[in-house]
């Protein structure tokens, strides 16, 4: 069955509440030129595609490198990148890619299928110690290559200069999606620069790396030979601005072309008629929650976990503490996810029902509970809100704020009963439900130590299913079970919001990550 056919069967249940908000300015002829300035909250660790998967790094790297596939932010589905077409074998295990001709790296050399193979093998090389290992170690022969039992990955075959076949060891629905994360690197440059490649990257993307002053600025310039056409802006500058108040001052003085809005600043721009037309918002693919450790009494009792879900008035907290910059969570999947369904209703605010459930669990006299969160002031405000509502039903909650890394580590080691986190699992529903699979106990994601054999079986089946409609159905069934078992307190889905200068055209609302902007399609209208 051809992958294209599978695509055609896709029922986009979506969902997206304004994935691409209309631009306030009507269609105009784009203008070339201008210096686009945006900011990052901290310096990316590294710009080597094999080394970092952080949002900050990817939002820079995606402008320097090309991937085989891209993720369409509207449909959350695969669209062509440097692979102009592809097909899937009868057994659903082999993808054959056909590369575009004439795609050139920034050093002038044409990209070939050998570069794609090298880029995958580079990630799988043990010395690279890539965090993307899992993404590609399902390729046939990859495990042997990683274990140094083979000098080549047998599942990657270069058919000719522009064609490449990659075979997965198992049929997995998430396999094609992996190639949206594969940035292609030129072998000779990666080998010549070695460790320095991450500091002076060379790719084939719409922008060419110029300079990087650590903790200060990253400067890129437009690639005039880009296969999709020269970008409109002539330069792209990323400034590292760690303090949100300073970033706002930079935006207000016109020195930044857009900025992401937080809870505190959201209303100021969204309610201001002067700025409102330039505010873009979208529900992100993130679910904020309290993880509930199901091995720690009394949280091992499902009624206690359900009581916590009923006890907290999410709608009021979202309206007040979060200033409306979120949507109340009803389950695991946010509204912009293709597996979201309105039929999962979640838990309503019902303190009477919460008390009833606690009484049934033998806790009519109440209970003590530690609420763990990071030291962020935002999290502090959430915790205080949770504490207020929990006290009302007899849960004596004690707030424990600590360094994020410490909290994560302790949660992974099964040391703490609760923790506040934001979970982002990407567009594939099986990946999104990863933290509920018993194979991912501990630091691998399932810190709740939640195990439901039916959920495991459903997700195993969903992983093998290539029919997207069926896969989504299986994920939704698993989600219903998870919601009923309540290993999380399902809090809210963040709305990602940005505000841009009035003369900037082409920015979109991307539910995967608002900072992932198609910069080669953005242009700057000269100020009058």
């Amino acid at each position, binding site marked *: 069955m051809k992958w294209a056919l599978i695509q055609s069967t896709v029922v986009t249940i979506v969902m997206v509440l304004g994935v691409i908000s209309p631009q306030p300015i009507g269609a105009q002829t784009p203008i070339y030129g201008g210096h686009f300035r945006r900011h990052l909250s901290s310096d990316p*660790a590294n710009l080597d595609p094999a080394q970092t998967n952080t949002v900050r790094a990817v939002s820079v790297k995606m402008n320097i490198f090309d991937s085989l596939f891209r993720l369409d932010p509207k449909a959350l589905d695969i669209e062509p990148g440097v692979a102009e077409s592809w097909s899937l074998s009868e057994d659903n295990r082999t993808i054959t890619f056909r590369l575009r001709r004439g795609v050139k790296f920034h050093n002038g050399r044409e990209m070939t299928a050998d570069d794609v193979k090298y880029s995958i093998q580079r990630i799988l090389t043990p010395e690279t110690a890539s965090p993307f290992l899992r993404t590609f170690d399902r390729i046939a022969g990859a495990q042997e290559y990683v274990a140094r039992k083979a000098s080549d990955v047998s599942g990657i075959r270069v058919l000719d200069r522009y064609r490449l076949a990659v075979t997965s060891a198992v049929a997995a629905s998430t396999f094609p999606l992996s190639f949206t994360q594969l940035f292609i690197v030129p072998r000779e440059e990666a080998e010549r620069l070695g460790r320095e490649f991450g500091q002076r990257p060379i790719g084939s993307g719409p922008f060419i790396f110029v300079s990087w002053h650590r903790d200060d600025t990253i400067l890129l310039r437009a690639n005039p030979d880009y296969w999709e056409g020269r970008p409109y802006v002539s330069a792209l500058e990323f400034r590292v601005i760690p303090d949100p108040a300073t970033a706002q001052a930079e935006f207000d003085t016109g020195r930044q072309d857009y900025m992401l809005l937080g809870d505190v600043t959201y209303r100021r721009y969204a309610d201001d008629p002067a700025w409102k037309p330039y505010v873009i918002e979208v529900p992100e693919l993130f679910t904020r929650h309290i993880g509930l450790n199901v091995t720690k009494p009394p949280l091992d009792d499902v009624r206690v976990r359900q009581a916590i879900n009923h006890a907290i008035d999410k709608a009021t907290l979202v309206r007040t503490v979060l200033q409306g910059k979120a949507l109340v969570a009803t389950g695991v999947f946010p509204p912009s996810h293709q597996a979201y369904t309105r039929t999962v209703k979640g838990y309503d605010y019902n303190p009477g029902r919460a008390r009833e459930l606690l009484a049934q669990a033998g806790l009519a006299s109440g209970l003590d509970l530690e609420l763990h969160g990071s030291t962020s002031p935002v999290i502090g405000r959430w915790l205080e809100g949770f504490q207020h509502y929990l006290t009302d039903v007899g849960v004596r909650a004690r707030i424990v704020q600590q360094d994020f890394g410490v909290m994560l580590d302790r949660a992974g080691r099964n040391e703490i009963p609760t923790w506040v986190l934001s979970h982002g699992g990407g567009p594939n529903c099986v990946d999104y439900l*990863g933290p509920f699979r018993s194979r991912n106990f501990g630091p691998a994601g399932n810190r709740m130590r939640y195990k439901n054999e039916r959920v495991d079986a459903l997700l195993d089946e969903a992983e093998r299913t290539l029919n997207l409609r069926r896969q989504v159905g299986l994920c939704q069934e698993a989600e219903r079970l998870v919601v009923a078992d309540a290993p999380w307190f399902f809090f809210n889905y963040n709305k990602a919001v940005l505000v841009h200068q009035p003369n900037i055209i082409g920015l979109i609302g991307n539910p995967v990550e608002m900072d992932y902007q198609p910069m080669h399609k953005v242009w700057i209208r000269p100020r009058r």
Partner: protein
Amino acid sequence: MISGISAYVIKRLLLAVPVFVGVTLVTFVLMHIVPGDPVALLMEEKVATIDPAAARLIRAKWGLDDPLPLQYLKFLRNALQGDLGFSYRTDQSVLRSILDRVPATAKLAAAALAIAVLIGVPLGIVAALRQNSLFDSASIMVATIGVSMPNFWLGILLIYLLAVQWRWLPPSGYGPVIPYMIMPAVTLGTGLSAVIARLTRSAMLEVIRQDYIRTARAKGVAQGRIIAVHALRNAAIPIVTVVGVQLSGLLSGAVITERVFSWPGIGRLLVDSIGVRDLPMAQGCILFIATAFIALNLIVDLSYLWLDPRIKYR
């Protein structure tokens, strides 16, 4: 034959060796006691799950599987050869990362100290000469306000007024010296100038009551010369000591000011590396800071010889 001063300097440098070992050992132990796995922190950023196989490879690459004493000894051996290793987070040379940030840190420290001294010393002298006057009381009040103002608050206030409201200066960044450095230097220098003013006032008050000052006045020496040549030089030792300590502090980074003004200095580098348990980078930064402290303390001690020729080092 080594002269007295040379012997003293050599002795001080030799004493620095156990300080370096102690500082690195304490940092190493603390970084391992504090919970938080650097591998998990590297990988966990809005990703669903951490891949145990990838985590194993990363741990092996960083040498985290070795016993702790062996890890420390390896660090010491490499550090003695001038190799501070590679950052876990950036995969970049630690030494290079630190050296890249030294100019920004040094410029900001020098500018802040210049502001502090240029404001603090004259203010302290005048307050001492007009003890118990309105000016004296006002200077005490200004100094108290200066010390009490948190840097982040003053920084944000300056940005709001000078950059957002009046558009006189850029809000933040590390660009051409004058426009970009004014606000961070003033933010840092204000608090320090208050400390220096108070110290100068008390030191001057002590000196101007001495007999030799009275004698100079009786002999008709001009007031300016009495202050500059006779009084200030004798009052300088405590001032220089404090300025030296404060300069050491500034070179170790002014984290809050650097963050508010997006200044790429050592302070941010250190705090960020501790946040992600980037041990090699944190060790490197702390070694740099220790070196700055030791060097500046030595310079301050040697400056006493010039300020007061009666002092002798053996």
